[in-house]
């Protein structure tokens, strides 16, 4: 240091950037910033008891029947990726949101926003795969909307799907029912979808190609509910923000802490490798065909076994437990026996610099 005592010119930091006058990408990435946008703007404005539950889908009681209602928009880039495309993602995503309340999905709506000049052949492929996905999930696409915007005003194709489902059992599946001692299960390897998309986007190729896990989970949910009954407390599909975001949502909504065990969390070796390369943590990478289940401890083994018998749960694992209700946070026992926090992601996971 040139000027003698180095402490004379340190500790210079800049102004806090707490308020954004414009929407940032991170406002849509499933992390803390999106959470705040939802709480501070949308919940404030639309305030009602159903919305305020902050579930992936709304539950409405109509003439004594409980219906679930959900919506989701799909803007993935690239629109075709290993293991799927934007169309089947749009169908499976909304089916899954309905299923996580334990509902049987009934039907979907589809809204297309198309960019002028988009190849008709690609639209055909997308629509065909949507119908195939809907058939697979046992839902019908019963209404829709189409808009075309000027070239350059949208990126190729955006799809919105909404859906309605019906709950055919008496109990409630919600994070609010989570209790200390409950077990946390995940239905398979995490991070597959995010890495499949990212590797396509970045032009990375791997010895064994990583495919998106996009799939409709309603069948797996039925199997879990059949096995566990009301001892399944909460279900959620860890999409944006990954497993870390879902566990943090559980902890916060239930007012508990959750501890997971690093060595139990299933991750494909190729995904581990890709994450190393890209500087990402698989806990924060998106999934599109996995669910996290919190169940009562006495039923955990049976549920795990039942999940493993299902084609979409072959790699299911017991990854942790609900530890206490004194503090709300998620921690992880590391492979070498240490312990760390698993925080809610702030925004986009950023690639490392060196």
């Amino acid at each position: 240091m040139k000027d003698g005592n180095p402490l004379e010119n340190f500790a210079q930091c800049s102004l806090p950037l707490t308020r954004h006058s414009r929407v940032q990408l991170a406002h849509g990435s499933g992390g803390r910033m999106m959470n705040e946008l939802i709480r501070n703007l949308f919940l404030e404005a639309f305030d009602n008891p159903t919305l305020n539950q902050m579930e992936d889908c709304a539950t409405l009681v109509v003439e004594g029947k409980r219906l679930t209602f959900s919506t989701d928009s799909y803007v993935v880039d690239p629109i075709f990726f290993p293991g799927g495309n934007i169309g089947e993602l749009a169908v499976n995503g909304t089916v899954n949101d309905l299923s996580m309340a334990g509902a049987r999905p009934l039907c979907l709506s589809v809204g297309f926003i198309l960019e002028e000049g988009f190849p008709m052949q690609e639209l055909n492929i997308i629509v065909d795969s949507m119908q195939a996905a809907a058939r697979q999930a046992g839902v019908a696409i019963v209404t829709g909307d189409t808009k075309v915007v000027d070239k350059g005003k949208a990126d190729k194709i955006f799809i919105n799907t909404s859906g309605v489902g019906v709950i055919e059992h008496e109990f409630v599946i919600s994070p609010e029912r989570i209790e200390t001692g409950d077990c946390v299960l995940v239905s398979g390897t995490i991070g597959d979808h995010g890495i499949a998309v990212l590797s396509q986007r970045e032009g990375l190729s791997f010895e064994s190609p990583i495919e998106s896990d996009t799939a409709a989970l309603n069948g797996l949910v039925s199997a879990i509910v059949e096995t566990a009954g009301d001892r399944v407390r909460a279900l959620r599909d860890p999409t944006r923000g990954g497993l870390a975001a879902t566990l943090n949502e559980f902890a916060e909504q239930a007012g508990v802490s959750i501890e997971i065990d690093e060595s139990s969390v299933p991750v494909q070796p190729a995904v581990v490798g890709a994450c190393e390369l890209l500087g990402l943590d698989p806990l924060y990478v998106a999934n599109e065909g996995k669910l996290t289940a919190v169940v009562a401890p006495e039923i955990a083994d049976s549920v795990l076994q039942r999940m493993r018998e299902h084609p979409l749960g072959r790699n299911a694992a017991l990854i942790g437990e609900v530890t206490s209700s004194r503090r709300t946070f998620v921690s992880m026992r590391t492979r070498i026996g240490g312990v760390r926090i698993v925080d809610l992601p702030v925004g986009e996971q950023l690639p490392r610099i060196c």
Partner: protein
Amino acid sequence: MRYLSEYRDPDLARSLLRQIRQTVTRPWVIMEVCGGQTHSIVKNGIDRLLPSEIELVHGPGCPVCVTSLELLDKAIAIASRPDVIFASFGDMLRVPGSEKDLFMVKSEGGDVRIVYSPLDAVQLAKENPDKKVVFFAVGFETTAPSNAMAVRQASRGGLSNFSVLVSHVLVPPAMKALLNSPQNRVQGYLAAGHVCAVMGWEEYEPIARQHKVPIVVTGFEPVDILLGILMTVRQLERGEAKVENHYLRAVSREGNRPAQELIEKIFEVTDRNWRGIGVIESSGFRLRPEFAQHDAEQVFDLTDMKVSEPSSCISGLVLQGLKKPHECPVFAEECTPQTPLGATMVSSEGACAAYYSYGRADLLSGARSNQDDPE
């Protein structure tokens, strides 16, 4: 996975922890230089597994954190221009400048793009001849070869629309500066493995000798770090002060000669202002004068910049290993990764971000670590 799972092996890690406990007889302060090591330490819970005699302090090895506010403001000014495509590693985008960050520039319409390699930015320059493409060349010796390669390719390809905003910093001058500080507490260094992979470890020998500190070239996985700590503690306990390299799978004494030659052709050593620390003599690279047409500071008129650094955070002390992130009064309160007061809370190599993301002591105080019984 080869070269990964064996360096995360729980049995090996436990055995090294046991050896560290058996070796240490009194308190030692060891600094891991590189922010990547800091993150690995906190992410794996290593700091909580070590015997209490060993204190790890976190070094300045986070290029994002030490990039001066002036350069960051220059980057923001350049990126805001309509004729520019500004390319950067993602880490830089959320670092607060005097008034805004690069993400905000993007949301205001600036063409800011995240790239994984400076060569991607060169490609952007080829594809967009009507735009000026600027790459934010941030980093230690590790990223210097690829940044040098980008400049060489642009120069050879006659890409006059490609330039770099250089903020290169060098590790050994910073290590020396910290040791020369009257407040210095560091008694041993874990040197940054990736930096040494490029530069070798010869240049650390005079530092170890003159300052009587052991320096162990260390990798980034838990087993690497524990082995680095063990070797440092052994030297300290024996009163030795030499350079040792246990990161043999990546580092040789002379380093990567072709990479060094490339750096030499494109860059020259210069004084550099480290954010939070101050100016350190001969501690950075700048482009050689013959590449002036690829130097963003020459290409753009950047006078009239008003740089303002209020002083509510202690990142300077953190970067020098004098304070721990959680000792800062605003840590996890006003200052979070979402509302960072300093770059150390933003970067994937920043110590404050590591503590916030993985190791907030107030939350973990009740959680046990699986300490082996000392034998």
